[in-house]
């Protein structure tokens, strides 16, 4: 298969073959991080700009490590969201970065669709590192990669996604990716956190955590952000934990060997108990490791696609 997309904006737009290609490429890249010299020259001379409009240490660091292991030069730009209104427009910022002759912009933005818009206005590659509630493709890819590594397949798996589905780009990207690869997805949350029309994306809805966990091969637990306005109506964190938290007791009723994932950072005692987070079913730290391989694969593929497009046109 030939990868010819200069950008990675979301998983909705990818075919099953493209998803499988990224995962296969990531598998090869995973080995690089096990070497004593964890670096290959594949992106030597290329510049990756991490453009973050929202604070995110994890994703930014993961992309930075990935880019550096490919020998790219990395520039980090963190912009305060509040200054966006006064400052230059996103398009101007993008064009400026392009004028610096950077090759890839990795962008995190608090508004949905920002990456799509940026990619329309620059010729260099854009990798979406999370835009609003829209998509977070590399997070879903690393979730899927980890799941495949653990369970050997994606096709036919039952995956539960638990938490604030309405405001979660991680949930959306996971639903697109998992269903394209043949898994069955059930989203589970209090009713106010289930967005309208989610079934049309291919997910089942459950309002009961025990029911959602019952047949699940894996559960992806989302971070709850109680500081959101929309959650004001929602009872206290403790109550959420009581009704939806992943606990040892709940896992006992679930399938043996159920894989527990979390995109981090974890609110211990809110989304899941510490016992579960640190327990045998948890693959949370493996997700972090795999994130590097997946992001290396993505950076490598988009850079190459752009080079090849430039040479053939």
């Amino acid at each position, binding site marked *: 298969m030939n990868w010819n997309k200069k950008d990675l904006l979301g998983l909705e737009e990818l075919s099953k073959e493209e998803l499988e290609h990224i995962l296969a490429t990531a598998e090869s890249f995973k080995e690089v991080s096990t070497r004593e010299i964890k670096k290959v020259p594949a992106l030597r001379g290329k510049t990756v700009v991490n453009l973050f409009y929202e604070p995110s240490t994890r994703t930014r660091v993961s992309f930075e490590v990935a880019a550096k292991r490919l020998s790219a030069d990395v520039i980090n730009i963190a912009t305060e969201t509040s200054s966006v209104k006064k400052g230059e427009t996103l398009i101007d910022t993008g064009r400026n970065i392009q004028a610096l002759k950077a090759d890839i912009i990795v962008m995190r933005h608090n508004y949905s669709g920002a990456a799509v818009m940026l990619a329309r206005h620059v010729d260099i590659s854009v990798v979406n590192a999370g835009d609003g509630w829209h998509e977070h493709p590399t997070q879903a890819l690393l979730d899927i990669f980890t799941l495949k590594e653990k369970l050997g397949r994606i096709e036919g798996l039952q995956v539960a996604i638990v938490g604030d589905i309405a405001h979660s780009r991680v949930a959306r990207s996971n639903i697109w990716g998992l269903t394209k690869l043949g898994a069955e997805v059930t989203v589970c949350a209090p009713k106010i956190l289930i967005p309208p029309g989610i079934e049309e*994306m291919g997910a089942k809805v459950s309002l009961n955590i025990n029911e959602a966990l019952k047949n699940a091969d894996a559960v992806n637990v989302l971070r709850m952000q109680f500081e959101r306005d929309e959650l004001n109506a929602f009872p206290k964190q403790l109550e959420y934990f009581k009704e939806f938290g992943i606990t040892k007791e709940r896992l006992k009723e679930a399938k043996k060997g159920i894989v527990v994932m979390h995109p981090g950072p974890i609110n211990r005692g809110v989304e899941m108990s510490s016992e579960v987070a640190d327990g045998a079913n948890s693959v949370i730290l493996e997700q972090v490791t795999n994130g590097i391989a997946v992001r290396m694969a993505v950076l490598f593929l988009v850079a190459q696609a752009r080079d090849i497009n430039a040479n053939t046109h």
Partner: protein
Amino acid sequence: MQILIKGGRVVDPANNIDGIFDILVENSKIAKVAKNIKDEAKLVIDAADKIVLPGLVDMHVHLREPGREDKETVESGTMAAARGGVTTLLAMPNTFPAIDSAENVSLLKEIIKNSAKVNVLICGAISRQRLGKELTDIAGLRSAGVVVISDDGSSVDDQALLLEALKKANQEDVLVSSHCEDKSLSGNGVVNRGFNATRLGLRGISKESEYLRVERDIELAEKSGTRMHIAHVSCSESVEIIAKAKKKGVKVTSEAAPHHFALNEEAVLGYDTNMKMNPPLRSKQDVEAIKKGLKSGVIDAIASDHAPHTENEKDIEFDRAEFGVIGLETELSVAITELVEKDVLDWKKLVEKMSYNPAKILGIAKGALGVGSDADIVIIDPSKEWLVKKEDFLSKSKNSAFIGKKLKGVVEYTFCSGKIIYKAKE
């Protein structure tokens, strides 16, 4: 000056005419409508294979002047109107300052006198600064020349205030045009609520936020016995509510914007901010309901809701971009393409929706081609297709939802009071 328009198909529902006729214009009026007029004329226009309509009356236009001349001016907006075949328009009051006092009406009138290319009517505000707190002097606005009042862009949340406004409007015989939106329900939404909003990760605007307000406003109109006009109807529920009210005999009229019958919410996929407007593009079923409403007569008029915004306000993140699209220059062609070509409306009905009915609702002597009428005339080539290009717009702003689309029907000439105010390039 005499102008003879020869051999065109004249569509004039006011006089129940649809056939090949000549029209003789003398000075600013229509002098004759007949077959084979032999009179000498200084200018003879061959209108064979063309359609001749009364100039369009667009009862929902944001001209932005005074205050936001970077978006549009009375001059540029009325030039755009002329290109679109619109010869009379209603200027909405959400300007800076808002049209909420007789002084501001005079200010706007002065601008119109100096720079308007078409007839511009003035809509005054219901509340001071359109804040929904304190009523404007409706009688004062009326005597200053306002024919409609509206807080367009916002709905009047305070029921008591609106009821009072309606009573005053009734006394003054002013039409109330209502922007129906319950902000407590639409919140910070930017697109139609539902699957598409969810997949885009954008906040939804529920249909309830519109139709519950339509319901309330009609109820208040009924209570006060005042004429009410529902602006930019976008969803099936609103159409049903209006239909019921009309059946009951409530004095209510309504309008739909071209984008609400030509486009559905899927146009937003890709985050094109030229697809962001309020009310938002709705579902396919809603689009069908709007078309049905136009066909059945529940929806009386087509109005552009022409809302110019600069590129700086549109070429930004979807959430931050302004609501609204321009429409004056495309509304007729969109209506031809989507309604006439698709057998939703015949030509006569189309003219009713875009000229005759709005004139009637506004209570003005327009929208007709009878002898003695103002010579506001549009000649169109109904079979010619054109590609909507950003650079061709005469409007100062280019935020059209139809850029890149092919539309049927080209305006060849627009006459306002007997003068050619627009002529298509050869």
